[in-house]
């Protein structure tokens, strides 16, 4: 007996388009075959079945008999084999995490990762220590990718004009038009991708273009290498990539380059840079960083001297350096109005004094001339081959992307485009406003969009195909030095998603190709025909790096004549700098709650972008934080709230890209304003002659740190006065001279106590943490890594504005010095795990107690939520679940949680645990071996992710441990310890800065004498 043919039903269902309703499985299976089978099986009842009126009684009868027969038919199981893990797959142990190597592609390159997987679901991203772009750490964006994978608003099915469709429908729908294109050599076919970083995909594209020679492949994404590329061509006559080695540079000059957090090699660069600034007892050398920039950035805040100039003035500064260094090859004069000669000459002297051990880097938003001058300076300073190496570009098909996009729009306008396939970009939203991409796009007869979200572009496309997340697909990508990594999936696609490899293969007529086969074939070809491919492949997947793929240095000759003429621009009004956002990037991560809620480095703003202005501009224009202004550039205008940032260039405004999305998810919509509307394709990162007008409106912005401490009056004074208790800063000279520490309340300070002689002795392991403020650049990676590791919920803009953000480790930001040229300091603040913890004695139910290894432990089950502990915590590191913040309901987010960490309920206090789950894991391993936990075995999430290794963790009872050594440094101190005697286990190393004495005498940059 075979009542229902489930295969048939499945096949029928998958053929359905849109919303087809069926009343019963029977109706669905109402096929001639079924009817025939029925007639065969139940000949006497056939008449009943055929009569619709009698069918019900037939089914009733059958139902009764089936139940009587004890469901003897046993046909309900699908016929595919499903197997219980009676014999578990190798190494799969419930509760035990496994790590797989893969890479996070972004822009032209990718960062190697090790992704933690629990029973088949990726939960946490870590850096791959073997990968040169990671070295075990990651930046902020990579950390948020697990949430991106489980984003409940990811697009889940193929859609045709907004109706649910299938991949098969899509293939069928495009097959006709593609056939037409094959006939005409693809003359009407255009593919617009982001920067393609995958060698395999580039190979597929080339294959497709060989087949359809008249088709065109365009690449565009807002954050691209156009400036660098043009600069390299201007300087060397060809495109090259620069690889920097900051660990060998004693003096670094950044020309608007936020190299510590941006770009393919940011993590490696930040680590290299920090290695030259390890102020430890006995240190004799420390590098010095000069930064020229308009917008306060992470790199600017880390600089010993920062010159705030407008975006366009950086060019003049670069030319001034060329003149000061007497670079004959650079043509161009410094404008007469140039006001920073002294600064430039002093810095140039410092660079010259460190020839061969210096480095000049130019920012990607700067025009070609600035890059060219930087190349010429590095050449003249003898840095080439030492601190800077040139290689072939990392991406397989480097092009001028802005020109490419402009050509595409031209073709679309001219009606030359029949089919446009948008491969995982969102050009309707993020292309420069003057190109009119949207209008041109709507004129294309067949528009196909591959994307992870239903966004602005998919809304205007006939076909939308969900794109597989990089954690659920095969691909490959190169690191910043060219090292290739095979991107391997951690999980099967959650939805009916396809990768770009698969879509391109389908366009080429090979719809059956899988990403796995394509990538493997590519590398088999690369590897050559030899027998050891399987071993090579397994090794590459295991290690996350393909050996021997580092790009070799390239010898390039400097052009004899580099034109760096400073062209005059519109000097009226303000100059608006447009920058990619540190967290939502170009807008693609706008629906990621972790990134949205992560405070921006310079402003501590969350969930919004804002028009950043200097305090003086705000004063002159009578603007306060949150005042909405209208920015007008030509006929384009935009309303944006203002945010005041000390250290911002004068007569300038900064607006970050990636906000003001109209589609793409609940979180993306309604966050911030769309700066692309002011972007023009000929100067994508600066708009000159912008008028600013107050509108009288106000918008509430959610900031996690209300006071910048540069305020006049009581508040500002109080903040400056107490800074030395909180965040100590000293110069390297003083540090070396040995009187830079202490200031009367550091080491050597007698602890006054009434309990003398009765203090607790800590035996066994005693966990402690030391945070080196010199190394900390304030990139926030620790905050988001902690969020991912510890199941920290997202609370939303409104709750952040009310002061209820949940981050267990926050990065505090303070300013000192003068408001127009302030020093910026960052201080990560996790729980201090005080030995004399003020929180513990006030809890009436004993929900926060001290562990015997010195951890200040939170017992969620016992907590009734009096919040007394938080009131009494001088560091305010405790976080309270005012509402049910943790999402218990969304199915996909349940997969995201770290199973080793409790998901907290409403009404419960929580805080940093020193990643107690990791300590316990190490303890179990150590116990199995019957030994104590070794130094370095416990790595906290914040420590692991830190690009500059600013965080050390370990056993303070073990004199040989790294953390013990750091605790005995002369500049180690406990925050507020001398005031409150809390004996914090988390302590700090003072921030040591290395200002140039010559520049301090000029009064430029930072003032070392006034520092505390």
């Amino acid at each position, binding site marked *: 007996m075979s009542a229902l043919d489930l295969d048939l039903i499945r096949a029928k269902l998958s053929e359905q388009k849109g919303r087809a309703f069926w009343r019963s499985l029977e109706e669905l299976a109402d096929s001639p075959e079924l009817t025939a089978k029925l007639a065969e099986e139940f000949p006497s009842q056939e008449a009943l079945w055929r009569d619709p009126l009698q069918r019900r009684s037939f089914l009733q009868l059958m139902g009764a008999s089936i139940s009587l027969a004890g469901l003897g038919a046993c046909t309900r199981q699908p016929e595919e084999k499903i197997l219980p893990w009676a014999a578990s797959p190798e190494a799969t142990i419930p509760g035990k995490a496994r790590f797989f190597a893969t890479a996070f592609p972004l822009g032209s390159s990718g960062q190697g990762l090790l992704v933690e997987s629990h029973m088949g679901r990726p939960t946490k991203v870590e850096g791959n220590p073997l990968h040169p772009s990671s070295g075990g750490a990651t930046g902020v964006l990579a950390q948020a990718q697990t949430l991106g994978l489980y984003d409940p608003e990811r697009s889940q099915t193929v859609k045709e004009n907004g109706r649910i469709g299938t991949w098969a429908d899509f293939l069928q729908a495009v097959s006709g038009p593609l056939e037409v294109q094959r006939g005409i050599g693809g003359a009407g076919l255009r593919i617009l991708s982001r920067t393609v970083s995958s060698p395999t995909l580039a190979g597929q594209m080339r294959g497709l273009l060989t087949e359809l020679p008249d088709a065109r492949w365009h690449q565009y994404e807002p954050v691209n290498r156009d400036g660098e590329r043009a600069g390299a061509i201007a300087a060397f006559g060809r495109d090259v990539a620069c690889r920097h080695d900051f660990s060998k540079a004693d003096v670094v000059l950044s020309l608007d380059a936020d190299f510590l957090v941006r770009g393919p090699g940011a993590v490696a660069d930040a680590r290299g840079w920090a290695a030259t600034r390890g102020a430890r007892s006995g240190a004799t050398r420390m590098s010095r960083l000069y930064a020229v920039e308009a917008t306060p950035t992470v790199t600017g805040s880390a600089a010993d001297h920062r010159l705030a100039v407008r975006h366009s003035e950086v060019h003049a500064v670069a030319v001034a350096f060329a003149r000061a260094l007497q670079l004959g090859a650079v043509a161009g004069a410094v404008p007469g109005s140039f006001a920073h000669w002294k600064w430039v000459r002093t810095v140039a002297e410092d660079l010259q004094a460190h020839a061969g051990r210096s480095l000049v880097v130019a920012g990607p938003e700067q025009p070609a001339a600035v890059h060219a001058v930087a190349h010429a300076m590095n050449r003249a300073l003898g840095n080439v081959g030492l601190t800077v190496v040139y290689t072939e570009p990392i991406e397989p098909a480097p092009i001028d992307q802005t020109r490419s996009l402009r050509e595409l729009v031209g073709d679309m306008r001219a009606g030359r485009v029949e089919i446009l396939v948008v491969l995982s970009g969102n050009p309707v939203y993020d292309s420069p406003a003057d190109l009119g991409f949207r209008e041109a796009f709507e004129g294309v007869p067949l528009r196909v969009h591959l994307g992870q979200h239903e966004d602005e572009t998919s809304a205007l496309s006939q076909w939308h195909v969900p794109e597989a997340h990089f954690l659920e697909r095969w691909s490959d990508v190169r690191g910043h030095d060219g090292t290739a990594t095979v991107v391997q999936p951690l999980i099967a696609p959650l939805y009916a998603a396809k990768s770009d490899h698969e879509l391109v293969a389908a366009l080429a007529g090979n719809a059956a190709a899988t990403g796995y086969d394509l990538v493997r074939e590519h590398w088999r070809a690369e590897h050559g025909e030899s027998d050891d491919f399987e071993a090579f492949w397994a090794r590459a997947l295991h290690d996350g790096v393909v050996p021997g793929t580092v790009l070799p240095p390239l010898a390039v000759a400097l052009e004899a004549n580099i034109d760096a003429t400073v062209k005059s621009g519109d000097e009226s009004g303000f100059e608006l700098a447009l920058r990619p956002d540190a967290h939502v990037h170009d807008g693609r991560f706008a629906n990621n709650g972790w990134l949205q809620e992560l405070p921006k480095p310079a402003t501590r703003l969350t969930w919004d972008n804002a028009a950043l202005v200097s305090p003086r501009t705000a004063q002159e224009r009578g603007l306060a934080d949150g005042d909405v202004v209208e920015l007008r550039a030509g006929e384009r205008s935009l309303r944006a709230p203002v945010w005041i940032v000390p250290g911002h260039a004068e007569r300038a405004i900064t607006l970050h890209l990636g906000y003001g999305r109209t589609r793409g998810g609940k979180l993306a919509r309604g966050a911030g304003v769309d700066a692309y509307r002011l972007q023009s394709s000929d100067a994508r990162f600066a708009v000159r002659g912008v008028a600013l007008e107050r509108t009288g409106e106000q918008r509430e912005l959610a900031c996690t*740190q*209300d*006071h910048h*401490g540069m305020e006049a*009056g*009581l*508040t500002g004074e*109080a*903040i400056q*006065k*107490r800074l030395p*208790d*909180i965040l100590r800063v000293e110069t390297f000279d003083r540090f070396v001279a040995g009187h830079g520490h202490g200031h009367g309340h550091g080491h050597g300070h007698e602890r006054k106590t009434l309990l003398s002689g009765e203090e607790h002795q800590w035996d066994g392991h005693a966990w402690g943490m030391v945070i080196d403020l010199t190394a900390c650049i304030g990139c926030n990676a620790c905050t988001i890594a902690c969020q991912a590791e510890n199941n920290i919920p997202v609370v939303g803009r409104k*709750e952040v504005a*009310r*002061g*209820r953000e949940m981050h267990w480790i*926050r990065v*505090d*930001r*303070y300013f000192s010095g003068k408001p127009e040229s302030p020093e910026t300091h960052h*201080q990560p*603040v996790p729980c201090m795990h005080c030995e004399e913890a*003020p929180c513990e*004695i*006030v*809890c*009436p*139910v*004993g929900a926060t107690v001290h562990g015997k290894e010195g951890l200040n432990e939170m017992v969620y089950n*016992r*907590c*009734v*939520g*009096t*919040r*007394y502990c*938080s*009131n*009494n915590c*001088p*560091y*305010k590191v*405790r*976080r*309270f*679940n*005012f*509402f*049910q913040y943790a999402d218990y309901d969304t199915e996909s987010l349940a997969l995201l949680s770290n199973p080793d960490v409790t998901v907290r*309920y*409403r*009404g*419960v*206090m929580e805080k940093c645990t020193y990643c107690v789950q990791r300590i316990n894991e190490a303890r179990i391993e150590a116990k199995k071996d019957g030994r104590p936990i070794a130094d370095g075995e416990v790595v906290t999430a914040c420590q692991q992710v830190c690009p500059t290794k600013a965080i050390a963790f370990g056993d303070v009872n073990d004199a040989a441990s790294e953390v013990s050594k750091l605790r005995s440094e002369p500049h180690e101190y406990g925050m*507020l310890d001398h*005031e*409150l005697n809390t004996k914090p286990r988390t302590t700090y190393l003072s921030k040591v800065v290395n200002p140039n004495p010559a520049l301090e005498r000029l009064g430029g940059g930072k003032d070392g004498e006034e520092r505390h």
Partner: protein
Amino acid sequence: MSQATTPPPPDETRTAAIIRPGHSLSSVTDKISKIVLQRHTPRGWFIGLGISFALVMLLLWSLTVLLVKGTGIWGLNIPVGWGFAIINFVWWIGIGHAGTLISAILLLVKQDWRTSINRFAEAMTLFAVACAGIFPLIHVGRPWLAYWLLPYPNTMDMWPQFRSPLLWDVFAVSTYASVSLLFWYVGLIPDLATLRDRAKSRPWKIAYGVLALGWRGAARHWDRYETAYLLLAGLATPLVVSVHTVVSLDFAVGQVPGWHATVFPPYFVAGAVFSGFAMVVTLAIPLRKVYGLEDFITMRHLENMAKVMLATGLIVAYGYAIEIFTAWYGGSEYEMFMVQNRMKGPYATFFWALILCNVAIPQLLWSRKIRNSLLALFLISIVVNVGMWLERFVIVVTSLSRDFLPSSWDTYEPTFWDWSTYIGTIGLFLALLFLFIRFLPMISIAEMRMLVPAEEEPEEEEK
């Protein structure tokens, strides 16, 4: 039964001004018991109870929303983890101080002018403590587990944490509430017997009869009653001091600048008496007017209470001064900033309003004329009540909003639900008070009769 409730001979000294001459034992009994036993209920009572009851409904609504959604409906945040709930708790507990002070301490020191006000002051204490008691329960994040603060044997084998002042609070407040209730009830027993004897309808006779616990007014009853009452007064007396001392320790034990001060216990006790007396005055003035009790609650009472307010107000002012002095003398940057921030920071308005209400305006009470003006006294008592609430706001909120690390400074803005819960408890307080004055004698009949001059022999009471 005619002799059943005859009290022992009254103390004849100093009774002149605390009960208007001309009253006899029966006229006292009649006048006070009539308020309870009369058939006719004034329309004003219904209106008053109606409004109060509506506010009780607002309270229930607010509490329902709180339980369903969570503590987040209030304006709390990190750093300001405590807000209206704790402010209101301290405020109500403070108000609850007058009753016991009047009943117990003034009894022990033989201030018999207390007699006409002690009953409703005690009732007010109970109701205020009831209102106060709501807040610690609901302000926690998981109110359904608030009983974990009690030391009870349990399968978790867990005790509360005895070092926490919040736990001391649990003991102090619950002890205070139970002793106050007992004291009030014991004092009521002879009067309940009077009401039993005088009630016309059977259900009331039974109700009062049960509550009177078989009081017959025998000499032995009186003897034991007097002893018990005195003992309870002795028990209650230390509580007057201990409750608010413990409440003040919630703050003083913390290390937050603006909380961590040794002056807190005496200053909080004085503040509590200050606000308690202010509340008694606020209630006594309209009550005596509406129910024609000018004979029993005379100007002498009001003037005495005004004097107590003046004295305790001065102690409170001293507390403020000492706080500022120690902040300066202690030399701590954080304490000094706390003082400056109170005076000039975002909540400066609250601070100066508090100084005006609690320090400046009460100085008017030096004038006998003001002390004898009903309107002025009434207004001042309200101002003091507002001022004492502001004091708690300033202590709780301004201290927390800006403590040690400027990075976590934030402000607290009360939400609709903060206000609705607060106003709701005022409604609860008033509703209980309305019920009390309708169903129980608001002035102690038995004690008032002791004050009737001895030469006025009691008339024969009707059977």
